[in-house]
């Protein structure tokens, strides 16, 4: 089926989403949004097998509650792309704002550049659903707090540290944060601890590195040195258990 092209210039998000939903319902498999400028909620709650190209800068909550579609953004993304996402993929050819992948329970997000605060916060997993968030450069503070599942991977392609701010993995009780180039332990949040990668971990990480490289057309070779990576995991599956006593 041919591609549907929608000119989003000056269009409010509700009619824009209505058009996307109608196209998906009619069986369109490829949608190209031109001139996107800050429209929030693009593809919110959309189900099904469709590829959506976003040209421009989408607004907040891109693909929130989304279950299935693949979104590729040619530009930066705003606040919380992939928020509470269920399944599907978001690829951002640029950087993204705060709370990327907030409470994500499934699907994959690849951001070519950097992300803001609270990335991957409270991501969780259940049975076959294991969300993945891969960042090319770095993340700001509070990355992966309260994480209950899934994988966050940061490649630190910019040459500096992947994370150099506090609150890394505070309250993490499931899942993993994998950082290339390590982290100063002073930034580790309460309940987070650093471990080395096992063979199995490395296989999973290497796969994601190569996938990232494919998405953004870069050579994966410089990022394939296992000894450069560390893994942040929960110190306990019950981070708050020692805080309370019953009456």
């Amino acid at each position, binding site marked *: 089926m041919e591609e549907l092209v929608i000119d989003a210039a000056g269009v409010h998000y509700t009619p824009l989403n209505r058009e996307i939903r109608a196209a998906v319902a009619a069986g369109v498999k490829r949608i190209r949004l031109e001139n996107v400028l800050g429209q929030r909620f693009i593809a919110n709650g959309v189900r099904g097998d469709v590829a959506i190209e976003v040209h421009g800068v989408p607004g907040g909550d891109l693909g929130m509650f989304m279950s299935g579609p693949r979104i590729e953004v040619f530009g930066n993304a705003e606040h919380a792309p992939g*928020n509470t996402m269920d399944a599907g993929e978001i690829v951002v050819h640029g950087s993204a704002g705060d709370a990327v992948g*907030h409470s994500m329970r499934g699907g994959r997000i690849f951001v070519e550049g950097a992300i803001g605060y609270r990335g991957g916060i409270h991501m969780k997993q259940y049975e076959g659903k294991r969300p993945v968030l891969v960042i090319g450069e770095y993340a700001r503070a509070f990355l992966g707090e309260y994480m209950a599942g899934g994988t966050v991977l940061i490649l630190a392609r910019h040459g500096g540290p992947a994370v150099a701010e506090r609150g890394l993995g505070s309250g993490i009780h499931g899942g993993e944060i994998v950082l290339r180039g390590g982290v100063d332990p002073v930034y580790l949040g309460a309940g987070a601890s650093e471990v080395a990668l096992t063979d199995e971990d490395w296989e999973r990480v290497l796969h994601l590195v190569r996938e990232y490289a494919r998405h953004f057309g870069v050579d994966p070779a410089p990022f394939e040195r296992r000894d450069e990576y560390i893994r942040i995991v929960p110190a306990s599956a019950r981070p708050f258990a020692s805080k309370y006593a019953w009456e």
Partner: protein
Amino acid sequence: MTPSIGSLPPKYRVTVDHDRCMLCGRCVENCAYGAFRMENDRILTNSRVCTACHRCVAFCPRDAIDVSERPLDYRSHPVWTRGVREAIYNQARTGKIVLSGMGNALDYPMIFDRLVLDACQVTNPSIDPLREPMELRTYLGKKPQRLDLKRREDGEVDLLTELAPNLCLETPIMIGHMSYGAISLNAQLSMARGVTEAGTFMGTGEGGLPEPLHPYQGHMIVQVASGRFGVDIDYLERGAAIEIKIGQGAKPGIGGHLPGEKVNGAISKTRMIPIGSDAISPAPHHDIYSIEDLAQLVRSLKEATEWKKPVFVKIAAVHNVAAIAAGIARSSADAVVIDGFRGGTGAAPRVFRDHVGIPVEAAVAAVDAKLRNQGIRNEVSVIASGGIRESTDVAKIIALGADAVYIGTGALVALGCRVCGNCYRGLCPWGIATQRQDLVDRIDPEVGGRQVANLIHGWTLELMDLMGAAGINSIESLRGNRDRLRGYMIDQALMDVLDVKSVGA
């Protein structure tokens, strides 16, 4: 290290009148805490484990059991109460935060009980609901500022204004959010059947919507809280409305967590987390750090469900509740839920439960006044919850400005709950706050549903009578009608907040 505090006096003493006892063993069977055992044709008791849930009393065919409270109390003292002393002993042993169950347990004055309702005498006739229609139907959601109409050539009138979706309640009494996990499936099923029969609604809490509840989804309000447990597009589409939980009256300002041991197979499925994993709901929503972010989540939920469902926002009643509610009213939300400091819970830190937040009566009056002053009262409905105990509380809070109420503990009491406050133990002998199948099976959802429907029906009848006596035949005429209230022994400052006159005035 042996603690030097020793054992504390038992809270309750269970005694069996052996002359009356027929050794049927029902007490042994019914007590989930193990307070009874049969030895040598005699029922023996262990008072230490008793919670005064009265399951044994309720099922003893001979009235042979007696449960007394504080059989050996501490030396009485008005400052150093039993609760204060025991919290210190607990913390001296553990060094931790003390958790407790149910709602606020401090003896604050009850504002509801210091407000009296009005009735007609001579100058205006009261109305008999038996012979006059009484309108209790309540619509929750945005109301338009004005209606644009157009008359067609054939004389019919078309409505040009686009109306926002509303929930239609046959009575202004709903059941609040108690999650699957905090309470049992059979307790939820009972309430679902009850509200469906009564033509009203109940909340799911943050525990997802288990499949057996799907037949009742048209009467369920699905909750989106900070942990986002069980939230996916399917869940959002099933609900009759969606509620964003910002805060809870029993523990304003803090999150919650369901301990891993309560996350069994079925609960793991509806919350969509691994078995045995803690279900941690952070204190804030981490995608909401401002009132603008709240508006974004409200609109995101509406956009995801194609603007077909009302979105409620629930906040705990706190000092600046009126200003916060005014912000919520401008966020595209359709209703704001004000949860007062008497609201119940399965578990909350004792200090929060007893000391944080304000009473719902003052909060609702302040919110209603603020919204009216700003000319946006029509933008949101106001739902009051936390400490609504009977139909007069419903009438009074509506007269103070609420559109409808949520009840919680009241609905559980209709299922047998004795307010023993041990919800967190997971051993509720009434089959409510437990996941142990033999205990859950003690509730038959058909019977439980009948009881819940009966309660709502009884309150609705009383509400009609109270309204009729006051000469009011529509709930809309009671709403915010403070002239129907008088304050009895309330100080002037609070009277000003409530905007009611004194008795006699």
